[in-house]
């Protein structure tokens, strides 16, 4: 009999992922085995939160080390750990804001929490993927859960439409990614990122059009997931149709995961050919932030406006990718963390202000919030200022790092366009503040649903936004150490 070699793996490296998977299945089991009349399902939210905390503690144990598993296709290093913490943080915040929302919208099923946990596993796999195949598997695990979550309001047509659109376009984008992976494999004979880099260092890439084609297709596939223009057409409809909590979830986690994979693939595998992909990303960055910001001005629905703003933020992050220097890479990490706090915080307030069935989700429905609920209005103003990039908030520091990285690499034009875009964005972010404080209310605010968990989420987001804005150096230092592994 042939001797079968067992793949070596380090149990420590996959323990956080296994924990989340275990908790996801426990949530499912508790849900089906408990009586349906229980209805409240508070237990499931707490179980999921516990899973995230345990996973975070386990992930913390491996800081500072580099562990490889499964024939070096899975890497736990400072880089993937930084992203893992972002994913766990964003998932935790989303579960905090979900608890009251899914009750209000009558989509209080146990699968909701399980799918969120499974999707987080996919993100963690993606950030840890040291070869293209593992990144692809992570992407699928992440996306398939989100396709379902997008259509979670089963009785609402708009939610179904969003889910179907996301699924069809997502499947198509995955096709691009896979085609790219197969071309890269065909021309280099490797799927491991380090081996691809080794091949390019030996043979060069100019002589190999197939390799460049593969690289371009991978950029398209991931460009879809980070919602860059011209692959952004799905974003507004999907963000609008999905339950608001899921909008918060997918505007942060999957985007961060796609950027994690993007950065690792471009820097580790194609680092030697950066002058090839910098041209592509340059144009993508330019289009993404301009289209995102300009179209956001015309939106009247807050969720759609935040969808376009999320496209614009992806554009800023792409600038950092173009810069391709240490500062650029670490500012991607910093900015995504900042974006996690400000975006989830903003959507949490949208959830509180809106009513069942996504009523009162237009911008003018915020009129008078400043007088009726000053606390909420102050928090919302902070998140808006942070997104616009005004000090002393996280968004300002993040943008500052990104633009200085671009200038350092000599992309002064791109940095200038970025700043101009940032000025454009101030208009629609400040408009919400103006409406909150300077317009008479057009509706009755009174029964606002304020569950303690959502308040905790908002407070955490406020603290995060301010902390990153006032004391950025500590986190930036960690980010700078995290990207060392990519070179």
């Amino acid at each position, binding site marked *: *009999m*042939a*001797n*079968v070699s*067992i793949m070596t793996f380090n149990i420590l490296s996959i323990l956080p992922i296994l924990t989340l998977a275990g908790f996801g*299945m426990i949530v*499912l*089991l508790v849900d*089906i*085995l408990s009586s349906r009349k229980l209805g409240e399902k508070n237990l499931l939210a707490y179980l999921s939160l516990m899973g995230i905390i345990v996973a975070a503690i386990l992930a913390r144990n491996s800081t500072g080390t580099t562990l490889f598993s499964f024939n070096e296709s899975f890497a736990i290093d400072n880089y993937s750990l930084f992203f893992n913490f972002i994913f766990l943080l964003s998932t935790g915040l989303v579960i905090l804001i979900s608890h009251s929302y899914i009750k209000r919208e009558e989509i209080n099923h146990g699968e909701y929490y399980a799918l969120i946990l499974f999707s987080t596993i996919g993100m963690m796999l993606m950030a840890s993927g040291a070869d293209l195949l593992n990144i692809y598997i992570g992407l699928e695990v992440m996306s398939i859960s989100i396709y379902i979550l997008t259509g979670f309001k089963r009785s609402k047509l708009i939610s179904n439409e969003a889910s179907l659109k996301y699924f069809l376009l997502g499947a198509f984008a995955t096709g691009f990614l896979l085609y790219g992976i197969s071309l890269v494999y065909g021309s280099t004979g490797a799927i491991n990122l380090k081996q691809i880099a080794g091949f390019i260092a030996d043979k060069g890439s100019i002589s190999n059009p197939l390799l460049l084609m593969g690289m371009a297709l991978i950029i398209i596939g991931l460009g879809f997931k980070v919602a860059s223009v011209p692959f952004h057409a799905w974003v507004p409809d999907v963000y609008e149709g999905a339950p608001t909590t899921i909008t918060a979830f997918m505007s942060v986690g999957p985007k961060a995961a796609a950027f994690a994979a993007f950065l690792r693939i471009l820097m580790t595998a194609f680092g030697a050919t950066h002058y090839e992909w910098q041209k592509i990303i340059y144009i993508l960055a330019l289009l993404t932030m301009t289209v995102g910001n300009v179209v956001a001005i015309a939106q009247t629905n807050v969720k759609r406006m935040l969808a376009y703003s999320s496209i614009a933020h992806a554009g800023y992050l792409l600038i950092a990718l173009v810069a391709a220097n240490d500062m650029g890479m670490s500012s991607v990490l910093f900015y995504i963390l900042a974006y996690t706090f400000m975006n989830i915080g903003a959507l949490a307030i949208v959830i509180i202000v809106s009513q069942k069935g996504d009523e009162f989700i237009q911008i003018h429905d915020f009129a008078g919030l400043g007088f009726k609920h000053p606390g909420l209005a102050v928090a919302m103003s902070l998140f808006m200022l942070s997104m616009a990039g005004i000090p002393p908030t996280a968004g300002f520091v993040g943008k500052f790092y990104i633009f200085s990285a671009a200038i350092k690499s000599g992309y002064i034009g791109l940095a200038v366009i970025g700043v101009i875009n940032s000025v454009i964005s101030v208009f629609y972010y400040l408009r919400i503040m103006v409406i909150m404080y300077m317009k008479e209310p057009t509706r009755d605010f009174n029964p606002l649903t304020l569950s303690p968990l959502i308040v905790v989420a908002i407070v955490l987001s406020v603290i995060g936004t301010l902390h990153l804005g006032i004391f950025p150096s500590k986190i930036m230092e960690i980010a700078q150490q995290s990207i060392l592994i990519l070179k």
Partner: protein
Amino acid sequence: MVEYLPILILFIIALGFAVTNVILSAIFGTQKPTAEKLTPYECGIDPVGSAHERFSVKFYLIAMIFVIFDIEVVFLYPWAVAFQSLKLFGFIEMVIFIGILFICYLYIWKRGGLEWE
């Protein structure tokens, strides 16, 4: 690229063979269509109504569940063949795998995925 040439040739021959046979039988075959011959074949039974109608979504569900457990068995075969050399590690791995699928089964069962009505 030259090493892929045989695959291209094989592809052309396969396509040519199929297309040629369809054309040849269309030209030389005797065709005496009758009403019985033109009806769709449904296991030899007289067809009941048209096949172009909406099917219950339950068929889709059952088919999907079937595929999942079918794949489970597919994975069991290579594992059984290599069982001797995988030793205890392989056994535990397979127990975990089956355990996860058992949770899926419980889920489907409790959610009513196996009930037709």
